[in-house]
């Protein structure tokens, strides 16, 4: 589904990503973790072309992301993305947030988009808030709407960029529950997150990044059992010690 091959990226002389390679098969859930500044967010943003990269190739469902001939908007409409800061559109109601791209990008009718949106809202448990504005919802609720918005496009895979990092602790679980459910339904997911509980529960593989390199790329049990690199062991010791 997603193939990342020897991807490197730099801002001027600052190397953000170095020779990153991995693959994510259909239906796989892959968690990407690592210390801040390790390039994990940048890597996931390269997958749908939000961040350009200078060398290497990324293909999603057989389409090359870095190819200048690729219709990026079309590709992105098939790849769902959830952001750290939700990024709901504050000037639109929840329903409009859910239907705008369905109508303007996929060309669905108003009614079709609306009923699809409402069905997804129900699924994330927020149907009662359909006519509110994003500012009236809590962070956790906004993030669930954001997931529903991404799902409204019927994506072939989902990218999560630290979806719980900006949330108050008591709201993290409501978002993770939605993600777990999604994973169990067989959605292909690439998740940048520090939520190791989530990783243990549903991830097939865990990728550990440090200083722009993929240091570990292991099956979940291997990663949590005995990571090969010292850096990953230190990282795990730090975040699991509490």
């Amino acid at each position, binding site marked *: 589904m997603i193939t990342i091959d020897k991807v490197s990226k730099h801002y001027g002389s600052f190397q953000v990503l170095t020779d990153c390679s991995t693959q994510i098969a259909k239906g796989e859930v892959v968690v990407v973790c690592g210390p801040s500044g390790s390039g994990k967010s940048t890597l996931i*943003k390269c997958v749908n072309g*939000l961040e350009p990269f200078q060398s290497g190739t990324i293909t999603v469902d057989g389409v090359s992301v870095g190819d200048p001939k690729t219709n990026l908007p079309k590709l992105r409409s*098939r790849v769902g993305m959830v952001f750290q*800061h939700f990024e709901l559109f504050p*000037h639109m109601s929840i329903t409009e947030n859910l239907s705008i791209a369905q109508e303007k990008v996929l060309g669905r009718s108003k009614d079709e988009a609306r009923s699809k949106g409402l069905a997804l809202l129900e699924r994330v448990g927020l149907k009662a808030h359909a006519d509110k504005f994003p500012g009236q919802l809590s962070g956790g609720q906004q993030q669930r709407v954001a997931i529903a*918005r*991404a799902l409204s496009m019927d994506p072939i895979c989902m990218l999560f960029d630290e979806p719980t990092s900006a949330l108050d602790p008591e709201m993290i679980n409501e978002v993770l529950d939605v993600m777990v459910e999604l994973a169990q339904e067989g959605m292909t997911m690439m998740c940048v997150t520090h939520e190791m509980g989530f990783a243990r529960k549903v991830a097939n593989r865990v990728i550990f990044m440090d200083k722009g390199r993929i240091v570990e790329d292991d099956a979940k049990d291997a990663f949590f059992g005995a990571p090969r690199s010292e850096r990953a062991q230190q990282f795990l010791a730090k975040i699991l010690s509490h």
Partner: protein
Amino acid sequence: MYDFDWSSIPGALPFLWTGMKVSLQITVTAVVVGIAWGTLLAMARLSSMKLLAWLAAGYVNLFRAIPLVMVLLWFFLIVPQLLKGLFSLDPNTDVRLVSAMVGFALFESAYYAEIIRAGIQSVPKGQAAAAAALGMSYAQAMRLVVLPQAFRNMVPLLLTQAIVLFQDTSLVYVSALADFFGAAYKVGDRDGRLVELLLFAGLVYFVLCFVLSQIVRRLHKRLATA
């Protein structure tokens, strides 16, 4: 002590109103065209295409570094000739109003471009990213997501600029076009009551602009709390 005599004002009101209509026409045209053209300039300036950004920056910097009155004069001197030449108009056709509108619109769009650029930059970058991630084209993301939020933040500034613009329309006197100020001047000159007429014109400008700016202030507060 100067002997004030206001008696020539009541009879001149219809003529002054004609002048006011010219002032308002120029203001409205310059605001509408200025915001439209200014939006395009702002987007060009923020574009990743270097040449486009450079050209837009050049335009904005050029117009912002030249006094308005000179721009107007050039337009009065050049544009009418140009229009007459291009469309083989009758030499007696009065194109001063049109050239005033064009001059103001082009000049003001440089200022509007800067306001709008700041407005676009005030919208978090993640909004454009989210729009793009949903498959929207750059134009869709701008039109549906970024600009509506930018304009909402900018309304008070855009209106304030419109008030300044309304005052600046008095500069068309250099072409002897009878806007409100020009009309007041003409009446005062004719009746030998220049001081009274200009005081009156000043009062009208003051009242209009003061009331409008109070409205803008209220609006600003309401937007800030919303």
